[in-house]
């Protein structure tokens, strides 16, 4: 039995095992929303198979009053609704935890544990008794476990009723049937078990300034707010929902008031080769254009990205990383595209990239990406991952600065062109390594020939060594100078800490939680999260200022560490890799374990911690 002495209110994790395609997603979303509306910090991680119907799927919810919302593998409660995965689901519960299962059929005695409490509720029987039709019964079984959890966790049932009323609006019948299912689970739990459990909910006020959204939704909204008009893409998990959301937002915000016609154009391309080509074409013409993709698509885009780099055409690419290589595990997360993004294409190429940590940054970085792409006339990547992109995150409410004006970069107008004697596309007129650009159709004097072939600063074809070098050297300077334009690193300095930790993207939550745990053990570590490439000069300084810097990332080869080695003057021997790359979101324990092991190896673990 669980230890009743410890107050486990608002600090627990639960996992729900179901079969995909049975409608459990909406039940799980409802559960998370109810917790959120009770004012308690919460996160949800959807672990789904690359399949449409019939395979096991899980949803993990972490409730944490301190706001630690990274994934945790320690589940206090397992809602086991899929007989196929009973065994492993039961194994995953912490000692002293609870397993809620469908007792319509008895559990195999071989998989029972005596250190967890089994709470059997006859969900299937109850639903067969109360609802008609196989589909409805399956759906309602999911709602019924939400009802049972409401009793066990002391969730506010009135809140659930309110949410159902919002969701189904005028469809009273649906509200009634869903509420009936909630009551079935709720009443059974209350009548047969002691409720609430020691792990339960208590109302707080820690979410009133927050919203729940996915990174892909936020990125799409950023595109709308940045004024992007052309989106070209090819469907790929986990990037697809960016364009889905963009389309939905455009349907709402981008109709011409007079004609009802679209103030946007979305093209579902034949493949990623075409998608990036369309973005380049549209940007070349002066539109803000973007594509969304993941690793395999990025590989296909590689050739065109080199063209955009060399011909200096803006483009915005959202790379929502998934587990590679090759097809890999398309529904699992990773940070394995760092090299591909930074060095995409043949020859000397290097790209500007932004690394959001959560949906909030996805929104703001999406807007910045268009500004930077047009300012520097080059592709800019917003590199997120499946965890950020597709999971529900609680983030501070987004804000929009009405004073924002898009930075369209150095584009000459018809009046500008009228005034100049001659226009040369790739000349460094201002000495900032950024040339002036013209758009087709504006003025005869603005015409030039855009090409991926060798060209001189006048835009003319060349095979001359010096003329070629002059252009590529300027481009190198241009990209380097973008270090000042990308978001600065996020830093939390621990006073006199001998150690540092550098991380990236979605590792943020787990890293910060781990640092708190390590600090409690007397291990002080300063924190830095890089948010853009080229790296800010402070990154190398941070690494060199610490005896050991742990580089925390989610890929096998330590791509961030290698980039830091090659692309900054930080000492390679100063850095130690802490990696997790199994496809699940990073947890604090991965970081604690990695750091502890490394310290032990270096003989730097405080006494008593070895």
């Amino acid at each position: 039995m669980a230890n009743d002495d410890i107050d486990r209110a608002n600090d627990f994790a639960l996992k729900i095992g179901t079969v995909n395609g049975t409608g459990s997603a909406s039940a799980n979303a409802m559960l998370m929303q109810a917790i959120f509306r009770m004012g308690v910090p919460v996160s949800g991680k959807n672990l789904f198979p690359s399949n449409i119907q019939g395979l096991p799927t899980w949803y993990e919810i972490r409730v944490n009053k301190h706001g630690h919302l990274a994934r945790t593998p320690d589940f206090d409660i397992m809602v086991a609704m899929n007989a196929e995965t009973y065994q492993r689901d039961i194994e995953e519960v912490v000692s002293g935890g609870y397993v809620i299962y469908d007792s319509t059929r008895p559990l195999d005695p071989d998989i029972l544990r005596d250190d967890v409490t089994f709470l059997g509720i006859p969900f299937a029987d109850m639903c067969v008794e109360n609802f008609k039709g196989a589909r409805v019964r399956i759906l309602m079984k999911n709602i019924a476990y939400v009802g049972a959890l409401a009793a066990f966790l002391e969730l506010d049932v009135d809140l659930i009723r309110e949410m159902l009323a919002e969701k189904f609006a005028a469809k009273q019948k649906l509200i009634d049937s869903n509420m009936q299912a909630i009551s079935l689970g709720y009443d059974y739990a209350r009548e047969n078990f002691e409720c609430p459990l020691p792990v339960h909910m208590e109302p707080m006020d820690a979410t009133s300034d927050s919203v729940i959204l996915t990174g892909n939704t936020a990125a799409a909204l950023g595109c709308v707010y940045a004024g992007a008009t052309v989106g070209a893409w090819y469907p790929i998990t986990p990037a697809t929902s960016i364009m889905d959301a963009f389309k939905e937002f455009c349907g709402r915000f981008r109709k011409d008031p007079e004609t009802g016609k679209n103030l946007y154009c979305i093209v579902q391309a034949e493949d990623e080769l075409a998608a990036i080509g369309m973005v380049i074409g549209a940007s070349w013409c002066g539109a803000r254009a973007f594509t969304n993709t993941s690793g395999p698509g990025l590989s296909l885009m590689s050739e065109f990205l080199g063209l955009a780099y060399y011909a200096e055409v803006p483009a915005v690419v959202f790379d929502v990383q998934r587990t590679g290589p090759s097809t890999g595990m398309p529904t699992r997360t990773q940070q394995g595209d760092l090299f591909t993004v930074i060095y995409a294409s043949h020859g000397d190429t290097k790209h500007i990239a932004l690394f959001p940590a959560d949906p909030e940054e996805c929104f703001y970085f999406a807007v910045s990406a268009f500004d930077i792409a047009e300012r520097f006339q080059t592709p800019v990547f917003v590199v997120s991952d499946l965890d950020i992109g597709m999971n529900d995150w609680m983030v501070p409410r987004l804000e929009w600065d009405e004073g924002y004006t898009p930075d369209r970069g150095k584009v000459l107008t018809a009046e500008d062109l009228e005034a100049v004697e001659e226009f040369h596309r790739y000349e460094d007129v201002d000495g900032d390594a950024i040339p002036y650009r013209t758009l087709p159709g504006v003025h005869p004097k603005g015409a030039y020939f855009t090409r991926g072939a060798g060209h001189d600063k006048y835009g003319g074809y060349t095979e001359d060594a010096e003329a070629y070098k002059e252009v590529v050297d300027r481009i190198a300077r241009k990209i380097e100078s973008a270090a000042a334009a990308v978001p600065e690193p996020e830093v939390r300095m621990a006073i006199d800490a001998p150690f540092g930790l550098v991380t990236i993207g979605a590792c943020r939550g787990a890293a910060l939680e781990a640092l708190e745990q390590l600090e409690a053990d007397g291990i002080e570590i300063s924190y830095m999260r890089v948010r853009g490439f080229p790296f800010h000069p402070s990154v190398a300084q941070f690494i060199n200022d610490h005896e050991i810097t742990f580089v925390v990332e989610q890929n096998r080869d330590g791509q961030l560490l290698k980039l830091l080695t090659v692309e900054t003057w930080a000492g390679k021997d100063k850095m130690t890799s802490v990696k997790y790359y199994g496809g699940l979101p990073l947890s604090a324990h991965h970081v604690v374990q990695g750091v502890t092991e490394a310290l032990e190896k270096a003989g730097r673990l405080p006494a008593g911690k070895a």
Partner: protein
Amino acid sequence: MSYITKPEVRHPALEENALGLTRRDYEGAMSTLCAGCGHDSVTAAIVQAFFELEIPPHRAAKMSGIGCSSKTPAYFMNESHGFNGVHGRMPAIATGANAANRDLVYLGISGDGDSLSIGLGQLCHAIRRNVNMLYVLENNGVYGLTKGQFSASADVGSVSKRGEVNRHGPINPVPLALTLGATFVARSFSGDKKQLVPILKAGLTHKGFAMVDVISPCVTFNDHEGSTKSYAHTRTHNFEVVQTDFVPLMTEITAEQDRGDTTAVTMHDGSTVMFRRVAEDYDPTDREAALSYLRASQAKGEVATGLLYLEESGADMHACENTVDRPLVDVPFGDLCPGSAALEELQKEWR
């Protein structure tokens, strides 16, 4: 090959169009292709077509991929933006450009290597989307820049300069385009400017994707006996099935319209394309009939030329996407950004 720049002098008697421009104003840099290349004749026909249509050069965009033909946009219309992209992927760039600015005149120049191998998918999808552009496929059956390999349009039995015999069946862009639902399909010969210019003019005026397959012999690698894309072979086997005349808007259509063997098709902008059938049973407004005629003539070894199919009522990409009539690049930011109040409202749904 020549690197000589063209002199800026202009003959005082040069004919001007309504914009006050001469043909010289539609020309570009000196061609660097081999002397006698069919592509240079196509370039000359393009210059003529734009001049006669009185299109301001800066309102046109020249798009191309990689290969000999794709180099030619540098050789005409200096005052147009040009984009020489990557191999086979000009259609994607053109599609994106068109999505952003629908008001420009888009001219795509490609070849059989560029269009029928890596570019085949993009060509098909540009047709499928009916992107409003003229797509000129300069077809010589051979890879010139890499020195004489067969392309996907080389006929079975065609002999290369090195004596190899091609065993693989050709991909023929004309029936392909017809099958895919292209709304404007033509074939011409670079050596027949009289036929080519009106076709190009009609293609530029057509609202939608206009594909013109131009047999354009490669003098260096594919102009020998045994080639089916040589000048001699094309001249002997060329059979013009329909004669095309393009009558611009505002020009009075003569009594010729009433002749029994002539069909007039009104273009989107009000100008007219006049067809005069040469082959008795050829109907350029009937897709099925055109296809079966072309299949039969191909079997006989004939190269059927002319504006082979025209349908002016098809919806182009923007019509399908219901995009605003003005170019998206002209929509002010204020009309695109929903603002802070909308953001606040929207976020109520995320609680």
